[in-house]
């Protein structure tokens, strides 16, 4: 499956000749720390869900290189139209852990006011567009935003994500087609993690690769080893640069693997071969990157302990703070449908509040 995919970090941890993107030590360490933090956050999220603390969780384990490597190629002024498996971008952009964790709880600290399920983040301050559940819708939106930037003469670049399943969606077809026709500055990253819930890649499309689909839209299609953060970064950087120069969109397929179940609602053991999972486990993107860093003298056990401990501490603290918070105010339910409440919504709100009031007075009684 990974044949012909760009790969940089070799078995011994060295970069393939002439391919090292030559990031500074500081940058490399930062990327590593964020990959670890993402993993730690994901572990915590699932545990919390299992304990009943939050209602749902969805991990990105195994895909840290794929999404963090690609996102790292973007400038802060660039925009993301993410799917739901790229939480590392938030850390890359410096979103406070509290904001992330409050979203899981949908509490009164959640910037999106508890409106969506856990992991459906929205952070306007860092150009991270609200995540949707319907698969693929972000793809044509990203193309449109890119067309908009082009019209306005901005040099913003847009990066959008979906999974292998997402390539079957209407918006994949429309988004790539429009981006191709208008040469919009957008990079489509498909994280091919081999599964769409229980449907394997082979049943998703008869195309040999997802990168091959680029030809249908007249844009370059690049296939990279999605567990190799340097390869993903390098391919993405080239695509982002091309986009910024007005040379149009790119489709990048990152070949990777969903190490966890689809989400906290799923049990992959029911449909997935353990051997396949084990084989991919050996290609863990964090371990792979570790080797590279170690070989460069940027990683040792001590550093690892420090990063792990700090990450866990931070996330645990954030969770503790989130747990102390309350739900959003009941009447907030009626806000943000429109900028201003319509008479109908106002009335429904008033009826609702009147009833809430009554309930407070006459506990559990329903006087007719």
């Amino acid at each position, binding site marked *: 499956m990974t044949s012909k995919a760009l790969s940089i970090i070799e078995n011994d941890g060295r970069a393939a000749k002439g391919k090292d993107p030559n990031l500074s030590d500081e940058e490399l360490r930062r990327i590593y720390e964020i990959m670890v933090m993402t993993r730690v956050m994901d572990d915590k999220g699932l545990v919390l869900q299992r304990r009943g603390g939050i209602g749902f969780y969805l991990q990105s384990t195994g895909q840290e290189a794929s999404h963090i490597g690609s996102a790292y190629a973007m400038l802060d002024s660039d925009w993301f139209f993410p799917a739901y498996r790229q939480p590392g971008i938030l850390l890359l952009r410096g979103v406070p852990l509290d904001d992330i964790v409050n979203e899981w709880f949908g509490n009164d600290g959640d910037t999106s006011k508890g409106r969506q399920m856990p992991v459906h983040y929205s952070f306007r301050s860092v150009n991270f567009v609200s995540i*949707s559940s*319907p698969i693929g819708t972000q793809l044509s939106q990203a193309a449109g935003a890119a067309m908009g930037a082009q019209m306005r003469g901005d040099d913003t670049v847009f990066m959008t994500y979906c999974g292998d399943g997402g390539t079957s969606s209407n918006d994949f077809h429309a988004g790539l087609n429009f981006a191709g026709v208008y040469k919009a500055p957008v990079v489509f990253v498909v994280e091919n993690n081999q599964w769409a819930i229980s449907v394997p890649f082979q049943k998703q499309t008869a195309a040999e690769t997802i990168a091959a689909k680029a030809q249908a839209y007249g844009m370059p299609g690049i296939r990279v080893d999605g567990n190799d953060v340097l390869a993903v970064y390098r391919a993405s950087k080239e695509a982002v640069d091309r986009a910024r120069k007005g040379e149009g969109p790119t489709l990048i397929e990152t070949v990777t693997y969903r190490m966890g179940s689809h989400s906290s609602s*799923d049990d992959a053991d029911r449909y997935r071969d353990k051997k396949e999972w084990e084989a991919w486990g050996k290609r863990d993107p964090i371990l792979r990157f570790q080797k590279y860093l170690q070989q460069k003298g940027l990683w040792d056990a001590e550093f690892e302990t420090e990063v792990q401990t700090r990450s866990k501490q931070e996330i645990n603290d954030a969770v503790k703070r989130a747990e102390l918070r309350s739900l959003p105010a009941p009447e907030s339910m009626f806000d943000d*449908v429109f900028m201003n409440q319509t008479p109908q919504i106002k009335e429904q709100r008033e009826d609702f509040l009147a009833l809430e009031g009554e309930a407070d007075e006459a506990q559990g009684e329903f006087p007719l």
Partner: protein
Amino acid sequence: MSTMTLLEAANKAMQHEMANDERVVVFGEDVGLKGGVFGTTQGLQNEFGDDRCFDTPLSECGILGTAVGMALYGLRPIAEIQFLDFIYPGFDQIVSEAAKMRYRSGGEYTCPMVIRSPYGGGIRGGHYHSQSSEAYFCHTPGLKVVIPSTPADTKGLLIASIRDEDPVMFLEPKRIYRTAKGEVPDGEHVVPLGKGRVVREGSDCTIVAYGAMVPLVEKAALEAEKQGKSMEIIDPRSLVPLDEELILESVKKTGRCVIVHEAPRTCGYGGEIAAIIAEKAIEYLEGPIARVTGFDTPFPYALENLYMPDVRRVMSGIAKTFNW
């Protein structure tokens, strides 16, 4: 008779019809080996092979388009849409194609197919795993719309839907998939489309409700009874075609009506019921027609419990029909 959940009854209905009619095929996302995200299609691939029960690529457009094609060719497809919220990428195939095929071809081509989908709130699914959009389909000529509220009805209505010669939207109230338990006839069991069910007889006020709202209004009726008001509950079971007679008869008897659904109020199915009564039985009314519905907002996550109609809101609706 066996006792089972609503979810199991849906499974049994499909199994019965797949055994009964080899034209029946079941497909959708994750319906095969996994048996569906709720488990509704569990065992079907095992029993009937992956020609008859199979997974599809992630495209509701493809699922529904291929279902229409199969139906045209003579099969009896059952297309599962994983959550009703995700049906829109294939909405065109439903409203422009399946619904109009018989009419536009002068009766030459037909689309006997069932689109099954879990709908409604109550499982902490937020925006996109909770919506009730039955009204869109009811407003589309050429579609039947069926919603069961008990295991027995689920089996009987789903079998009738599979045998129907026209496209049927079969919407399953996911909130009560496992909580609605009851006796279900073994083997052949058909509940005809277009016949409502009197869930409870009463004399002071009629409550019209369907799906997961039925057990809810039953609770409200008990509460009302404590306060000396006798509620009649009607579950239309199929919204299209509607058993208007049953509702009108009841309202003529009680003189009052409350309609309860989870969907947002504006242009919801409750409006249709109210309008029918206001047109055909207004002279019998002794109070305003009340609607107890979801609010005209998207479906929220954290405040789901406050968004959905509950006993308190149903009681308040009933109260409106008495005290105005």
